[in-house]
């Protein structure tokens, strides 16, 4: 078992918010999903105060070794989430982490406060980094803004607060340090990198939302560098993500300082990617400890495998 901010997890692999809908997956795959749930905790898609339709289609563009998306955070809003989604997600066999986003500090505060009361929720992730929605960029790209947000919401809950950092920032390490100083229990990164594609025939922006965010293998090296920068600046645990496809990719993020690893886009290629990565990782770690203990890093991850 792994301890992450006081939450017991069976292995270090979770999902990236917005890249796995456990409710839809259960409709598609039935109860087999629950019997083989791929993630050690489930991170739900970003919830906002009001319901959102999301961006007009097309929302997807396939790029070289990656995906550009402009989903626009469709969700039922806080009330709809509490009524429809929460009961179903609470029935999952793993702890639930709810990802929230507000357009003002007060909105984030309202969301945090609402979930603070719910026992079904193990932790909250603050999306301050969504590149599709204006405020995401503003709150998470600046250390001062991030600190002010945390100072506002920290008193509202004793649940672990994970700040999801945006990679579209000059100095993610400084933002992470500001979040830590203001009381964040963990940081997660990377969110998607701002990107754009044009319609091959018309030359107009392809995505209904204009610009979008890049994820997948294409961003793996960028994510690893950012996790390293953040690991050098904070002592709180890091949820590393960005382009993880295989157990070896997860092992690299762990070695670089992550305590957990999230699988995002790879779940689109393989619905059980999370489970596969967890199994490959376990095999790798047991191989290494058997064959060559001396080649393992002495930098232990911030939260270890017990």
């Amino acid at each position, binding site marked *: 078992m792994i301890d992450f901010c006081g939450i017991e997890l069976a292995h270090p692999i979770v999902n990236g918010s*917005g*890249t*796995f*809908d456990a*409710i*839809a*997956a259960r*409709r*598609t*795959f*039935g109860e*087999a*999903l629950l019997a*083989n749930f791929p993630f050690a905790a489930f991170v739900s*898609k970003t919830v906002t105060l009001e319901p959102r*339709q*999301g961006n*007009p*289609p*097309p*929302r*997807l563009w*396939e*790029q*070289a*070794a*990656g*995906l550009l*998306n402009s*989903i626009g955070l*469709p969700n039922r809003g806080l009330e709809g989430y509490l009524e429809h989604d929460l009961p179903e997600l609470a029935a999952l066999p793993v702890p639930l982490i709810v990802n929230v986003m507000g357009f003002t500090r007060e909105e984030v505060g309202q969301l945090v406060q609402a979930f603070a009361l719910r026992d079904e929720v193990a932790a909250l992730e603050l999306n301050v980094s969504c590149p599709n929605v204006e405020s995401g960029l503003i709150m998470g790209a600046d250390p001062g803004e991030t600190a002010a947000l945390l100072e506002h919401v920290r008193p509202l809950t004793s649940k672990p607060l994970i700040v999801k950092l945006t990679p579209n920032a000059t100095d993610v390490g400084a933002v992470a340090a500001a979040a830590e100083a203001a009381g964040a229990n963990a940081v997660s990164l990377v969110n998607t990198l701002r990107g754009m594609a044009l319609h091959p025939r018309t030359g107009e922006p*392809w995505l*209904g939302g204009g610009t979008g965010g890049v994820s*997948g*293998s294409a961003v793996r090296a960028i994510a690893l560098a950012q996790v390293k920068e953040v690991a050098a600046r904070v002592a709180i645990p890091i949820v590393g993500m960005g382009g993880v496809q295989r157990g070896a990719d997860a092992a690299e993020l762990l070695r670089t300082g992550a305590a957990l690893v999230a699988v995002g*886009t790879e*779940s*689109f*290629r*393989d*619905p*059980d990617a999370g*489970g*596969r990565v967890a199994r490959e990782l376990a095999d790798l770690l047991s191989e290494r400890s058997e064959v060559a203990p001396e080649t393992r890093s002495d930098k232990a991850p911030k939260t270890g495998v017990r």
Partner: protein
Amino acid sequence: MSSAASRRTVAPFGRRLGAVEANRAVGAYRVLEVADPGGPAPRPGQFYMLAAHERWGGGEAERPFLPRAFSFLRATDERLEFLLEDVGPGTRRLAELGPGDGLWLTGPLGIGFAAPEDGRAAVLVGGGIGIVPLGGWQDEIGGPALLGFRSAEHAAAAGLLAHAEVATDDGSVGHHGPVTDLLAEFLGASPDAVVYACGPPAMLEAVRALCAERGVPAQLAMESGMACGFGACFGCVVPTRHGYVRLCLDGPVLDAADLETALVAGAGH
């Protein structure tokens, strides 16, 4: 296995490795026969996400990366038949697979066609590669097939369905004009029909408009760009009268009455 009444066969969790058994040309298309041992019987109208086991990537513009959505033509005894049209790097890679090559498959996904209610007679309308989901459905519920194609080369695929009446854009076979001409004629004679249609957006929109005008119920098997196929990415939405729906989860078969238009941004070629 699901009963004939259900529109959704639940998929085994995760992707699994199928094996290509045959790859043959049918006119301008390729038929891929894939062994899916242990795979459940899908409902007509459901689809699969497919990717080559090896070398999925490295094509034009360094793609494909994501799996691709395909209806099945027929499914018998744990063998699936797919019909492919080469329109880009993903379909090109799949179309070159040969016997023994591995194929990742996830599915069946989405919901299939609903059986005709109140004793209406089924008529199937297909355009181009859109004939695919009609194959298995016709085997189950019968009915004539009105099929539109660009040219005689493509119309060769009409042989994959029974009782097919053909229209071509260039008049090289069958009726010279859109397949909706055939549908209009048919509905004139049999106004109590239910229409099952699949094809390019413009065709589906013409079918939708015609059926709306005539007050005939229609089910449209639609397309949109997909990344995951199981509701995970929220990328495949199409607008309906009730807001956006994920086509991979609440479709690909939609009730025409729920649509203001069948023209979906980013779909079609």
